[in-house]
């Protein structure tokens, strides 16, 4: 190991990095960010923006840190006067034709041109007397606008489409200062992963129409989360403004999704903002459902479980529920035969060719594997078939269609409905409990590769809605103030880890922001 390490000194800080590391990555180890535009760790480096020029002792010219590999004993100056002067020169060149329309630009606040200019650019312009270059805004694709005037020609978008998406529809058109990003004739930027060019763009040149003028970057709250779109489990950030989700963006996880997410996942957030939410517990009183407080509702649920003890039960769950919720709700039924399943909507698979193992998966739920691990593993059809002989049915936010709702009603068994939104089929339930969505709680999903990943709460739950794991935890702990009932997602996960060998030894804290893969021996363990 050690013979593969080379030592370089960056701005006075010696660091040991593996041979072949570029200076820009080595500098990160030294705690130095080399300003850059064209470089991106998930794309090939063309070294064209010339922003990352650094001074290396004994080299006559400044070198681009993004493509220069470290050499043992190198002494590098990122913030020497010479390197800073070069960067200031680049910033000046980038800005002469930039419209400086930050007040109406979506990127403002998270713009690398803004940041570096603020950090070390010139205070004034020396390009006062000329009209700036103008090109009209172009419609590149279903969700993507190209604002050429703001473009700094870093070509990240071109390289993403070429070498990662494998669909080279973007190019650099024209030469010299007339150059812009072009799109091939008759082509649209509609690749299932094309939306990544918006995130990759370091300035406000490629914009998402969906997010256009929705919010200023500094007004957004951000929560580290996991995409609920499919079993891939791409790491995402949920951006909210005043408790309303306004966009999902990819969050780096080199093992799962590198820096990318698909467009379908990106679009799949509107359900988090639904207004038709269940907001109070409802318990049956004759032919009516009446609002109750949580104490009464939990008592009613406990009673229902007692009354039906020993009789076969059916659990119809949503694969968007966290492992904690699925696991603890499943535990409620531990004393009886259970047919438990999640409903798995299917869609087309859409791989990203440049990243092996990354695809929009056919199974469009995030926690299919987590459900299996906690014992919600029966086929959906089997669970529906078992409705007839059931003594109790628990619905955990399963998205039932009309036919399924009819079959549920026909079973005659009492129904405990834990749901997020109003549903016709809940009208016949013995009790209806409002639960939180994944955006409103902290929990975990287990992706298709057995990676347990934590998502954090991005917004508040409406009304009296509580996480489903809280509901189940309270009932499992019994009536009265019991210190044992989990009060946080992390405690709920601990409870699960005690009960299920698969999760033994794991905690929310140990999962970190990029998750952990379960030990192979753990696979296939049920409740």
């Amino acid at each position: 190991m050690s013979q593969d390490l080379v030592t370089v000194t960056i701005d006075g800080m010696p660091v040991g990095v593996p041979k072949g590391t570029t200076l820009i990555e080595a500098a990160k180890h030294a705690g130095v960010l080399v300003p850059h535009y064209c470089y991106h760790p998930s794309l090939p480096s063309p070294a064209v923006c010339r922003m990352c020029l650094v001074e290396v002792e004994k080299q006559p010219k400044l070198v681009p840190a993004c493509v220069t590999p470290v050499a043992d004993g190198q002494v590098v100056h990122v913030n020497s006067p010479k390197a800073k002067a070069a960067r200031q020169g680049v910033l000046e060149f980038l800005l002469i034709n930039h419209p400086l329309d930050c007040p109406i630009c979506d990127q403002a606040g998270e713009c690398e041109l803004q940041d570096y200019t603020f950090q070390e650019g010139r205070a004034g312009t020396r390009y006062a007397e000329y009209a700036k270059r103008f090109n009209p805004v172009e419609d590149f694709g279903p969700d993507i606008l190209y604002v050429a005037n703001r473009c700094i020609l870093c070509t990240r978008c071109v390289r993403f489409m070429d070498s990662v998406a494998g669909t080279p529809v973007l190019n650099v058109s024209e030469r010299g200062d007339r150059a812009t990003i072009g799109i091939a004739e008759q082509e649209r930027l509609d690749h299932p992963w094309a939306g990544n060019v918006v995130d990759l763009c370091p300035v406000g040149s490629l914009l998402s129409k969906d997010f256009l003028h929705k919010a200023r970057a500094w007004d957004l709250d951000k929560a580290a989360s996991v995409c609920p779109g499919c079993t891939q489990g791409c790491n995402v950030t949920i951006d909210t403004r005043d408790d309303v989700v306004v966009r999902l963006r990819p969050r780096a996880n080199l093992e799962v999704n590198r820096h990318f997410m698909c467009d379908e996942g990106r679009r799949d957030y509107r359900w988090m903002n639904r207004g038709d939410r269940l907001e109070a517990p409802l318990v049956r009183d004759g032919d009516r459902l009446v609002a109750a407080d949580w104490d009464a509702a939990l008592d009613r649920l406990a009673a229902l479980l007692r009354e039906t003890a020993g009789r076969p039960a059916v659990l119809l769950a949503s694969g968007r529920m966290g492992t904690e919720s699925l696991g603890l709700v499943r535990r409620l039924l531990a004393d009886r035969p259970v047919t438990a399943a999640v409903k798995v909507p299917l869609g087309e698979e859409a791989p990203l060719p440049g990243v092996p193992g990354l695809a929009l998966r056919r199974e469009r739920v995030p926690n299919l594997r987590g459900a299996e691990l906690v014992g919600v593993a029966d086929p959906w059809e089997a669970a529906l078939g078992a409705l007839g002989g059931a003594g109790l049915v628990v619905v955990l936010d399963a998205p039932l269609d009309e036919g399924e709702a009819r079959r549920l009603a026909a079973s005659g068994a009492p129904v405990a409905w834990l749901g997020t939104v109003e549903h016709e089929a809940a009208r016949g339930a013995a009790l209806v409990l409002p639960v939180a969505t994944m955006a409103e709680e902290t929990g975990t999903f287990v992706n298709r590769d057995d990676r347990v990943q934590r998502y954090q709460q991005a917004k508040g739950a409406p009304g009296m809605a509580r996480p489903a794991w809280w509901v189940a935890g309270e009932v499992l702990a019994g009536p009265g103030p019991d210190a044992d009932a989990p009060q946080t997602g992390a405690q709920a996960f601990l409870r699960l880890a005690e009960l299920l060998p698969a999760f033994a030894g794991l905690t929310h804290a140990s999962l970190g922001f990029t998750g952990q893969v379960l030990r192979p021996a753990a696979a296939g363990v049920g409740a």
Partner: protein
Amino acid sequence: MGYPHPSHPRETVVLSKHFGDPGARTFDGWVQRGGYQAIRQALGMGRDALIELVKASGLRGRGGAGFPTGLKWSFMPKDDGKPHYLVCNADESEPGTFKDREIMRWTPHQLIEGCLIEAFAIGAERVYIFVRGEFTELFPILGRALEEAYANNAVGRNIFGSQTSVDIVVHRGAGAYICGEETALLNALEGKRGNPRIKPPFPAQAGAFGMPTTVNNVETLAAVPHIVLRGADWYKGLCLGSPKSTGTKLFSVCGHVQRPGNYELTMGFPMKDLIFDLAGGMRPGRTLKAVIPGGSSVPILTAGEVEGTLLDYESIAEKGSMLGSGGMIVMDDSTDMVKTIWRYVKFYAHESCAQCTQCREGTAWTAKILERILAGQGREGDLQLLLDLAENMTGKTICVLSDSCAAPVVSGIRKFRHEFEAYISRSRAPALAAV
């Protein structure tokens, strides 16, 4: 020879011996004039001996950089099992340079023979001749010559009955100056946008199609058969100045001289004699003002600096400029230096490939400032701004186009500052309409 002028007695006519002689264009005509002897001799010599011969001759790249040719060939890996390529850079686009054009126009077989010898030396079975897109006249000439060469087994499988096979492909560029830069040329050859590549890797490691490649200029290749036939000592002996500059060189003289044209001279020939003797000097009543000695990319020399300068790599470098491609632009006292420099800068702004920020934006901005000065709207501080921009454009980009744009600006301001100041102080009438 100074085609279209008759050869001057002070020229050393080697490459240009048959310029103006249409009979030299055909295969038979070329053989009658001693052609295709060198390749037969080379095939019997062995590769290493050939490379050593070229090294010993002192031949240096004639495209502009002056890199020792034999050394460049020796960088090619041996027995690596990969296909090797020879690429002939015939994308002669440097303003003021028109020597390769004449070599290809009159003696296409001279170039083909040079290609064959080098291909054999570096183990390349395929040669690409990348011809500048605007050279419409040359394309059919090269095509015909190649056809004849194939028909006579000079090119193709087992050339001249030997074990060596060499195919030659003539590729016509799409007309971009930057494709004369060797790595941009390789990209263009591969069908990509003609953007210069980052080095390393150098072409000898990963060039055309990722394979070991040597790129040589037309004139360099045309000199090779003569070295093979007449020996390294003969070539090395062609030297009037620095021993590091040997052989003959074609100088394309243009501008304010009475007899513009190509002149083939022994290295180290006095620059002043070329301008005033061979090229006929200034027009009556005019005096020499400035010379750009090596194509538009090199710093300008004043009339005073021309004095005593020899035409070789070292002597011109001593004066702060470069021999470059040997494209010599001569300017007399009627020349407006500001306007001249503006025109060059405009050229570079047009031809920038747009990859590097400094070049894309800097060339165009520099042109705008010069335009404004010429329009009588210059300001105090403009010259400092131009020098600042030039500093930011020098030594910071992937290729040297940006440096080439800055060079005439810097040398122009340093040497002809009063002309810039005359526009800025409004003591000189505007030369351009207001912008």
